[in-house]
């Protein structure tokens, strides 16, 4: 392991790797990435691969648009097929309040160039054969949203980054961050130390622990999020289907499996990744209610990952006042994967070329103290 680097990135998930990827392609390779497990160990290897541009704030819509454009190029750039399929996202709204909310967000999305449409339940049934729209008021549908296979996206970025000369250390746990006169000077791991002046906290669910090593308190809290996968079926389900009333979502992967999860308002904050029967029952119930023809499909496996949640459902990015050289790139909740390409590029331009960007002001840590939060309403689970 190198003993010094211009920049250390803690977390070998999609966020940290996307940053390393863009830095390396801009010519900065004196970078060390530290990953506590194997690649895909954290949320980047456990999520459902949903990629959507239907968001309720301008910043997130723009980040998602840019990320979709980048995901479309990623297989070519990395040589790893990420199985990105733009089958669209179909949201179901079951009450007037959510329907009104949808109407507003669709207008905003349209203004920014996302071709989302409000459609009737009858139209939705034409998109998804056998869809049960009983009790559904209205739906929103954007054909340019989609799903991908998260693993090869992680491997692809990692491969390119390594080939360009960046060191990625897997199975390497960060045990300390040395701060001297309010400046980061060293990152200590269980396999040796790296002297550096800049460290990026891209540790997802572990971000709050990493921050503490530098004496910082973050408002982030990790939550278990469960998910399941069925046996593979012949392709029949074009869009990702998501019910906004209970946070159910499911899509068909390029392998043919139905893959999805459901929000659980009773889930406490924890670092737990066990599987629960409660999830299995709730998910099967909801999935069958929405698409009754799934009732005889066999479930193969359920698992769990994390949402790294902040109080307003938005990430915490950029500088943190009391410690010079400590950079935040975390708190993405359930949508880190889909925003990572754009965020990584913007962060790379900011770190390397001092190119400022709105996200470092809108999503800085200081917003909680200033009371300048704007909640993202469009989160699932």
């Amino acid at each position, binding site marked *: 392991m190198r003993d010094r680097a211009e920049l250390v990135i803690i977390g070998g998930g999609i966020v940290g790797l996307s940053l390393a990827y863009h830095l390396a392609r801009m010519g900065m390779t004196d970078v060390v990435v530290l990953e506590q*497990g194997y690649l895909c160990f954290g949320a980047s290897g456990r999520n459902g691969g949903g990629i959507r541009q239907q968001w309720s704030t301008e910043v997130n819509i723009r980040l998602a648009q840019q990320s979709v454009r980048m995901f479309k190029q990623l297989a070519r750039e990395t040589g790893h097929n990420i199985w990105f399929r733009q089958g669209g996202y179909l949201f179901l709204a079951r009450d007037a309040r959510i329907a009104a909310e949808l109407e507003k967000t669709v207008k905003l999305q349209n203004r920014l160039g996302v071709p989302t449409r409000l459609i009737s339940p009858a139209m939705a049934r034409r998109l998804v054969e056998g869809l049960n729209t009983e009790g559904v008021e209205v739906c929103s549908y954007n054909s340019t949203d989609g799903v991908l296979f998260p693993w090869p996206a992680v491997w692809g970025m990692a*491969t390119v980054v390594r080939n360009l000369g960046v060191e990625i250390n897997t199975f390497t746990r960060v045990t300390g961050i040395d701060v001297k006169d309010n400046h980061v000077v060293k990152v200590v791991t269980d396999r040796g130390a790296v002297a550096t002046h800049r460290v990026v906290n891209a540790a997802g669910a572990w971000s709050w622990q990493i921050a503490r090593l530098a004496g910082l308190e973050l408002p982030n809290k990790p939550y278990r999020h469960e998910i399941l996968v069925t046996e593979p079926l012949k392709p029949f389900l074009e869009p990702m289907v998501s019910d906004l009333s209970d946070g159910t979502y499911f899509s068909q992967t390029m392998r043919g499996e139905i893959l999805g999860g459901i929000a659980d308002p009773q889930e406490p904050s924890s670092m737990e990744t066990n599987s629960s029967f*409660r999830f*299995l029952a709730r998910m099967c119930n909801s999935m069958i209610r929405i698409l009754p023809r799934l009732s005889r*499909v066999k479930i193969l496996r359920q698992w769990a990952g994390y949402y790294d949640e902040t109080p307003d459902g938005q990430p915490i990015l950029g500088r943190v006042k009391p410690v010079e050289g400590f950079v935040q790139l975390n708190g993405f909740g359930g949508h880190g994967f889909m925003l990572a390409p754009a965020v990584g590029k913007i962060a790379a331009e900011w770190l390397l070329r001092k190119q400022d960007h709105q996200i470092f002001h809108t999503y800085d840590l200081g917003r909680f103290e200033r009371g300048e939060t704007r909640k993202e309403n469009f989160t699932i689970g």
Partner: protein
Amino acid sequence: MGRTIVCRCEDVTIEDLKQAFSEGYRDLESLKRYTGFATGFCQGKCCLAHAARFLSALKGGDDTVADPTRTRPLLHPTPASRFAGAAEPMEDE
């Protein structure tokens, strides 16, 4: 060695394991994800031991690599409808 199948559900061969190993995927969890063994219908019941043994051999007989990948429900593929009846109040043991 020809076409020796390690995982019958996903058609993963010994050559696939070797290739993944040569690309740096040298622990069982990574090897599983990169080649796809144990991700099919049997969820590893038929292939996990073979893959672990092969990985151990690639690492010169290192049997610490043979810790199995994480076991998750379901034990057998089961229709969704079997669980849908269990509804919300159901708690874990």
